[in-house]
Structure formats: C-alpha cells, structure tokens
C-alpha cells in the first residue's frame, strides 16, 4: 500500500466533504430591496373616476408611485405589491414581478379605484394608503407594509394645481389641474337628465330631426337654457377660493358646486354656471367647452369648426344690479372669446386654456356617479312650475352702459331693501383685537392651515364679501406686513395690485389704508386694508368684494371697519 497516495486521497476526500458542506451551508447574503415611495398629497372626490384610470391624461393621476430597486447580488423573486385605502379600498390584487435582477428597478403605480361613496365626503378628511410589499430575497420571504398619509378633500373643493411652489413658472402652472374641471360636467346625472328632458318638452317643445346641426337650432337651445335660468331667478354668486398649503404645493382651493346644486340652489359662480350649461348641453347631445382665463370662465357650444360662446354670468342678479338679455350674453361671450384668442386682457384675465368637455371626458376625465334624488326632482318640477307661472318674481333693472333701460316701454325698478342683519362682536382669544361681524356671516379661525398670521376669515352668505384679519408678530412696518401677505397670495397663483392711499383713524388708533385688487381664476376681489403697528408687530384687516363693488354693501362694510379695535 502506498501510504503517500492513501494519505493524499484521504485528505482530498475530507476536503471534498468540507467543500460539499460549504456549498450547502454557505449562501450569498440575501438581497435587499430599496423602496422609494412618492405620493400625491390630496385627492378630489369629484375626480375619483380619473384617479382610478391609468390611461387618463397619460396616467399622470396616480396616488402612489413605488420605485423598487434590487440592491443585492441575488435575484429577488416573486415580488408582490398590493395597496389599500382603509375604509375605501380593500387590498388590491397584487402586481407580481416574478424576478428582479440585481440592479434592476421596478416602477409600480397605484391608481385607486375609489367607491362612489367618496363623493359624500364634504370636508377635508385625513386618510392613509397602505402599501404591502412581499418578496423572496434569496433566503426567505420578506413582507412589509408601509403607510403614506394623504387628504381626501371635500366633494366641492377644487385644487387648481399640484405643482410644487418652486416649480411654478407662470400663471398657467397655477391652473395645472384645470382639465379636471371637466369632471364637474355631469350630463349623466339623473337630475340633469330629468331637467334636460323637461326643458326639451316644456320649453323647446321638441326638436327637429337632425337637431342642433344648424346655428339657429343651437342658438334656440342656448336661449332656452339661458332664459330658463333668468326666468327662474337664478343669480350669479361667487364662492370663496383661498390659497392653501397642501403637501409641498400651494394652491387655490375653490369650492365649486355640482351642476345639480347650482340648478336647484339658484346661484352659481362663473365656472359653476359654465359646468351647469355644459352638463345640460352634453345631456341634450351637444358638444360643449369652457373657455378659461385667470379671472373668468364661460361656456360655448361646439359645432363644426366654430364655438358658440355665451357669457353665462349675464344672468346677473338683483344684488348685482343688472340682468343681460340672451342677445347681450351671446355678444359678451363672443367678445370674451375674441379677447381670449389673443391671450386675454386685464378685464377678463390671462388665457389659461379651453376645456373641450366631450374630448376630455372621452380621455378619462369622467364625472362622478350621482344618485337620483326625489327631492331634487321635485325642486326641478317647482322651477318649471315657477316658469309656467310667470317666471321671476323679483323685479329686474336692466342696465346697459350705466344707463337704465326700459323693458317694454316701462321703467322697472325695485324697492326692496336689503334685510337688516345684526352684528356679533368677535373677540380674539389672544386678546389682540376685536371686530363686529354681521351675524349671518360665516366665520373661520385660521382659515389657511400653516399660515399662523392669518387669524380670522369671515364671508357673507353669498360669498361676495369677505373679511380677513391678520396679526403679524415681529413686523415693524405696515408695508412689510402687506408685502408678506401679497407674497403669500402670489405664491398661490393670485395676482395682486395695490397702493397705499393714506391714513385713517379707527377708534383711538391711526391705521395705514391700502386699496387693491386680487385676481384668482373666475374671481376678482376689490379690497381695502387697514394696518397699524403695535408694540409686538403689525395688526390689521382687509375687507373685500368679489366680482362686485365694495360700495354695494358700503353701510355694512363701514360698520365693520369702524368696529375694529386693537388692544395692547
């Protein structure tokens, strides 16, 4: 026996056993998955169908985007990603990636299919989206759940932009979400459909075969809708749009009512009157669009190559002092369109865009599902009964070019006086100021979250007048204070022009008076502001009128101004 060979052979056998052992017991380290989550800070219930559609506007309306990278040296296997929104969406069927190679990145987006009950959310509500990620890292199956907070806004709230403040380059960026206004056009709403049927039956008395193919038929339809609104006493009335910080964005958040609410409520902002008009028109089989500027919105029927614009706000209202005829509304709409086509002007605002409602809805910007409502149908019936019973009860003054016109040869005037309202004294909890506010105004403390110096907001029931009180600690001049406020508004896409007009004594203090105008989409607010320097900073307030003159409510406004007191 050759002992050397035997010894070497035994050593090699032992080594072989060791190597086999190493093969089975020593494994490469498990892979790690780098997870980056991006999310949107808020969703608008009105657009819940848009968020659920990955195809809508190139898929830009995802709620969560997960970027997952294999940072290890082994393949990750069976990567599964699932999402849920507690109370709204149960765990989704997981997206499965069978293998992820070392260094490979997987991008997974979540388009939440919210149930229609989300449309019942009336106020901003905090919510979470949970992301469950499981995978085999080469050694074991790993599962983790991450949570991302977001807000579900009220169903009437519209956020005009998602673009972060530092990315806003021009005014159109402040209206980047404008496309979503198409979701407010609700031709399939049972109430709108019912209204349209009633209109066709009782006002239009039917339509000819091939209806709406001729300009006359289109104008007949538009006239029927417009005159219905005027005759049933519908008025133009603003709602408040306030700049608000949402995540890393600053946006105007405007309360926009659904067309059914505008129709049965009898009042609407320019954009609301536009979405109502388009809802009825599309329900009747027409194509409709909305022209949008930084200050205004108005609808147009689309036929062939041309739009038939109409100034829907010419329905006016007694409080605004005038009501335009259908012909005037058409003329004004056409004039606005001509100005819009050349980029806009100071009066109607800067051109933002044109919303082709039929086109946008076909691309996925779909309105919410709305339930039939017996009470609202009854309300529609009452409107038609009112129409058949002689129309508007309120007397109307038709004013054109500041001259009172006659209607049928008779000068019509109104003698109705505004109702007398009481005042409540608001005392600042910190003891800095007090002010009298009409008892029927809606008062909100700290109306803009995160802006601590904006301490009080109040608005009239019709939202035409608004009061804002500011306490800016550490400021030493009123000019600096107003500049700070203007910067806040401009960062939210508003445009402010103002000037210092002198001094005014209120109570026992001297205030610096400013007057100015603030413009947001569809709203132009004229305001006066009064600021005074105290021992700790600057205190003051502004009082404004949206889309109307401050002088319309001068008596009430003067009383509010005179009541302001500062305590030191």
């Amino acid at each position, binding site marked *: 026996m050759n002992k050397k060979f035997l010894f070497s*052979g035994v050593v090699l056998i032992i080594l072989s056993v060791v190597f086999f052992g190493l093969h089975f017991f020593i494994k490469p380290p498990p892979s790690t998955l780098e997870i980056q989550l991006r999310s949107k800070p808020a969703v608008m219930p009105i657009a819940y169908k848009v968020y659920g559609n990955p195809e809508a506007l190139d898929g830009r309306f995802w709620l969560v985007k997960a970027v997952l990278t294999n940072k290890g040296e082994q393949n990750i296997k069976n990567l599964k990603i699932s999402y849920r929104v507690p109370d709204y969406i149960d765990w989704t069927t997981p997206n499965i990636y069978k293998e992820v190679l070392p260094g490979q990145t997987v991008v997974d987006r979540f388009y939440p299919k919210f149930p229609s009950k989300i449309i019942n959310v009336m106020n901003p509500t905090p919510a979470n989206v949970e992301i469950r990620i499981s995978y085999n890292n080469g050694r074991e199956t790993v599962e983790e759940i991450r949570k991302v907070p977001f807000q579900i806004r009220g169903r009437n709230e519209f956020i005009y932009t998602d673009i972060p403040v530092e990315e806003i380059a021009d005014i159109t960026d402040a209206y980047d979400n404008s496309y979503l206004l198409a979701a407010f056009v609700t031709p399939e709403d049972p109430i709108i459909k019912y209204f349209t049927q009633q209109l066709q039956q009782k006002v239009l008395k039917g339509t000819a075969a091939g209806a709406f193919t001729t300009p006359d038929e289109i104008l007949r339809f538009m006239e029927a809708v417009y005159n219905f609104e005027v005759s049933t006493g519908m008025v133009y009335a603003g709602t408040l749009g306030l700049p608000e910080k949402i995540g890393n964005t600053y946006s105007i958040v405007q309360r926009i009512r659904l067309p059914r609410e505008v129709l049965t409520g009898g009042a609407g902002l320019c954009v609301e009157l536009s979405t109502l008009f388009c809802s009825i028109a599309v329900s009747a089989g027409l194509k409709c669009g909305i022209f949008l500027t930084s200050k205004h919105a108005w609808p147009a029927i689309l036929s062939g190559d041309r739009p038939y614009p109409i100034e829907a706000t010419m329905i006016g209202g007694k409080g605004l002092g005038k009501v335009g005829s259908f012909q005037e509304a058409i003329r004004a709409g056409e004039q606005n369109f001509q100005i819009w086509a050349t980029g806009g002007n100071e009066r109607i605002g800067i051109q933002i865009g044109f919303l082709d409602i039929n086109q946008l809805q076909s691309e996925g910007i779909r309105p919410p599902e709305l339930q039939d409502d017996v009470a609202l149908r009854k309300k529609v019936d009452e409107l038609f009964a009112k129409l058949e019973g002689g129309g508007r009860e309120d007397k109307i003054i038709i004013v054109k070019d500041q001259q009172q016109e006659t209607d049928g040869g008779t000068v019509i005037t109104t003698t109705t006086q505004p109702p007398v309202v009481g005042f409540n004294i608001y005392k600042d909890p910190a003891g800095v100021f007090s002010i009298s506010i009409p008892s029927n105004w809606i008062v909100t403390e700290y109306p803009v979250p995160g802006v601590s110096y904006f301490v009080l907001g109040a608005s009239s029931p019709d939202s035409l007048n608004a009061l804002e009180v500011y306490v800016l600690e550490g400021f030493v001049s009123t000019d600096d204070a107003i500049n700070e406020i203007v910067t806040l508004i401009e960062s939210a896409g508003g445009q402010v022009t103002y000037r210092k007009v002198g001094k005014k004594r209120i109570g026992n203090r001297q205030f610096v008076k400013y007057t100015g105008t603030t413009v947001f989409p569809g709203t132009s607010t004229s305001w006066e502001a009064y600021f005074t320097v105290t021992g700790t900073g600057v205190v003051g307030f502004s009082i404004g009128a949206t889309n109307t003159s401050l002088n319309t409510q001068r008596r009430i406004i003067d009383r509010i101004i005179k009541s302001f007191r500062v305590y030191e």
Partner: protein
Amino acid sequence: MMKKVAGLMTVIFLYVFTAFSQTQMEKIKMEFEFKIDDVGNAEVVYKQSATAMQWKILNQTIGQNPSLLKRDLMHQLSAYELYDFKFSKDDMNRTFILTFKAKGVSKYKGNGVWDFKIEKEISPRQVSKNVWYLTMTNTEGNVLYEMYATLKLPDNVEKSEITTDEFGKRVLRYKVPVKKELPVFLILGAVSGVLGIVLIGASFVFKPKS
C-alpha cells in the same frame, strides 16, 4: 416611451410653429437615441436642430427655462423613474441636446427575456443583432413631424424580435444570456472527491519501492 417623448416635443413645437405655420408647411425632424442597459434602464438622447426662425422661438420657450421640459417629461413618463437630466445648446449650429436616464424601461419576463414597448404608430426596422431603427411621422396642422430613433440593446443580446405581450401590446422582445454563478464549492468538492478516490485506489495499485 418614444411616442410620449415625441408627443411632448410635438406639443412644444406646435406652440412654436403656430405663430408662423399658417400658410406654409413646416417639417420637423426629431432624432432620438435610446441605449438600454442589461437591467432594463435607458439612457435617452434627444437632439434637435432648427432653422433660424425656429431657433429664435425655441429660445423664447424652452430655451428660457429648460427645467419645464424636465417637469413635463416626468409627468408624461411617470411609468419610469427619470433622473440625471442634462440640457445643452449650440447657438452657432442652432442645435440643442437633451439627455436623461430612465429606470424600469424594459420589463423583465424571466430567463433573460425582456420586453421594450413599441407603440403601434412606430415603424421598427432591425439594423443589427442589437440595434433597431424606429421611425414615426405625425402631422399637426401645417407641421409635419418626422421622428427617428436608434434603439441600442445590450451588446450581448442573443435574439430580438417584434411580438406582442400577454396583453396584446406590441413589444420588442429580446434575450440576453442569464448570468449564472458557478457553484465553486460544489465543483471543488466533486473534483477533490474524485481525486481522493483515485489516489486511494492508486495507493493499493502502486506499492512503494522498497
């Protein structure tokens, strides 16, 4: 991806040419290069030349703030993770070059097979084993857009072909060899085991010389 990038450029150029393309036909040639790496990420180069008048208007739009282009691309291409944007322009030759990188462009199907989405409007032509030439034309108003793209797959591609995925979408499917780790310990164990047995056997056959 090419369609979306080209679509965004179309929108920009449409804006640029609206001002002066009412009467005459404008032709725009867009050049792209997509370089795909071995884990499905892409490096995209977009090169654009312009006439004197086009250049003037381009400078007034994206030339003033190219970061807007980045923002719009990130909107349009949210299916990918975009990063490392670079923008340069050559005023003398009226040319600008935009480059960026995108993660997650090709989808891994397993066994070395990858899918790169090719929209139906694009005409693909294979140039070599790993290079494809993609073209697309589009007309908007009086502007004719011609888009040309070179798609470079990883050098070690074994096979590439146009086919459809499980959802019926058209894809360029390509296969790269799967890297397999050699089971070093297993091989060593086997080799040493065999050698050991051979030596032990030999110890009985070859007796030491006395």
